[in-house]
């Protein structure tokens, strides 16, 4: 499930991993977060709990150099996130996050440790955030365009993979033009189909707060129903599916 507060998933991953351990299926949990989220209290709580309780979980930190506008030099003063793993007694590796095979190898090794020994592993994957943080961000406000272009040319995980594939003779320049075109068309098609869909029916707003609808929410549902029936144009009900 998705939530906005950062790092909350870290101790949750430790708990989920503990459940997996108890279930006996030799599975592990894997938990992703950025170097910014690793400053949150939940990071420290989660890693410490995973280590002390023996949770089969891979903590994977994507260190891309920026948390919105905050560069990593303002995020921490120690040796990245990897140095913290040592402090918690956790097996740790720092890996080139733009090297797909390095990441694959590190994650595979981490999984083996996690499920065979029931203990956590910390992977810090070093990379660079080429894009803006989000569509609400214009990163030229805090970094030079040149910095971004240099990184993108010099150390681009997609280009590196392409070069590796071409080197192997498994990919030729131009193979991707057709794929790029059809992938884009597919996305745009899905996008416009989704835009045409009606929003979920209004009554669903009250579902799943609890497993069953309590009396108070039943009352509120009736209240909103009556309001919407009274002022349909204000509430734009035609955008929503019928009950």
């Amino acid at each position, binding site marked *: 499930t998705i*939530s906005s507060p950062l790092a*909350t998933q870290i101790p*949750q991953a430790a708990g989920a991993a503990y459940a997996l351990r108890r279930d006996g299926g030799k599975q592990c949990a894997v938990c992703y977060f950025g170097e910014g989220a690793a400053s949150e209290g*939940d990071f420290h709580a989660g890693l410490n*709990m995973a280590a002390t*309780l023996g949770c089969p979980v891979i903590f994977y930190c994507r260190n891309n150099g920026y948390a919105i506008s905050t560069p990593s030099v303002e995020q921490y003063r120690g040796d990245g996130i990897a140095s913290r793993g040592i402090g918690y007694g956790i097996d740790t590796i720092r890996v080139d996050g733009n090297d797909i095979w390095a990441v694959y190898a590190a994650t595979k090794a981490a999984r083996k440790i996690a499920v065979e020994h029931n203990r956590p592993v910390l992977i810090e994957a070093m990379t660079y955030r080429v894009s803006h943080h989000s569509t609400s961000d214009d990163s030229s406000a805090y970094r030079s365009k040149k910095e971004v272009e240099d990184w993108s040319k010099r150390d681009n995980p997609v280009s590196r993979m392409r070069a590796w594939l071409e080197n192997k003779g498994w990919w030729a320049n131009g193979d991707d033009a057709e794929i790029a075109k059809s992938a884009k068309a597919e996305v745009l098609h899905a996008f416009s189909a989704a835009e045409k869909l009606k929003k979920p029916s209004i009554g669903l707003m009250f579902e799943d*707060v609890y497993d069953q609808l309590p*009396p108070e929410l039943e009352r509120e549902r009736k209240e909103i129903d009556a309001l919407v029936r009274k002022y349909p144009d204000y509430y734009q009900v035609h955008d929503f599916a019928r009950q």
Partner: protein
Amino acid sequence: MYPHAVSSILLARSGKAAIRGRLLPTAARRLYSSVTENDNVEPIRGLDLGVAHSKLLLRTVSAVRSNSELRTLGVAEGETRKMNMCQAVNDAMRHALTTDETSVVFGEDVAFGGVFRCSVGLADDFGRERIFNTPLTEQGIAGFAIGLASMGHTAIAEIQFADYIFPAFDQIVNEAAKYRYRSGNQFNVGGLTIRTPCSAVGHGGHYHSQSPEAFFAHVPGLKVLMPRSPVQAKGLLLAAIRDPNPTIVFEPKILYRSAVEQVPVDEYELPLSKAEVLKTGKDVTVVGYGSQIYALENAIQMIERDMPGVTCELIDLRTILPYDAETVAESVNKTGRLVVAHEAPRTQGFAAELAAEIQERCFLRLESPIQRVCGLFIPHPLVYERFYMPCAVRTYEAIKNSLSY
């Protein structure tokens, strides 16, 4: 005298005769925050106060046999055992652990038995993989519990004191409460139960006395309970553990030792979101929960003693979220008057919610303004606790105000 178990033991040792009617000599004066055992003063006039003398507890087997709710649940006729509230909590957890292989109990210091001994013997019987200590991190405990519950396991997490629940607030409010809703019911953390000792204990001060139920009563998606006794604690906790929603159970710590009842040994779940009418009356409705029930019992005794003919209806809310407004409204429609009491500070406390809801439902029936008797709007004090608390005397005054408006 309200139920301060520790201080009443110490004062009893010093000899009641020595302090009746006059101040203690300096050398013998106890530096605790409770009032003296000078119970001949106004308005007590010799009334036996507190949980130790409460008639609401099911102290005898016959009291259990005749309890209508336990009869409905089918445990009124079975074997009972004398238990205090922490033993009842222990028993509830035992039933959960025995019947649900995925259930685990964890928190700070729970393995050796817990600082209030609520988890005594559990590690021996169920093993250290299921009953374990965590490092000292409430946010970690809550997050870990959510992770366990999200995998369909049953997580029974202890927060050592309710005063320390605040680091876990983000996990509880932003994660646990919203888990089912935000995923369109694809996932849930219904298997999550947090239990935590709360409320005044006589010497707790700012950080061992808080009753933070109001913070959580404001969060859609959570359930919040507070039991008043061993029988209630066992049934409500077991119901909470098995309820498919994240639930917080606040356990008034002063009742752990001082509240003793005959408790059915079989398992039973008390209904959530169902208030209990403990005593019927026609003139005023008095609502509370947790340890406050005993102060209310005493206040009502004083009212009915001083105003012959007046009868008060006492209601234990039991579940604070989602709460049983129906039972309270039905009572107020009968009596026309409402007094709500809780230890938590008055402003924005739960009584404000109940007062607003009941005035909306019963406006024309009300004969007097709804009275709220609550903790003062100050951090829970140490030496001043007797003034802070919504004690029997302050509640007595409020009920009188309500009746004489």
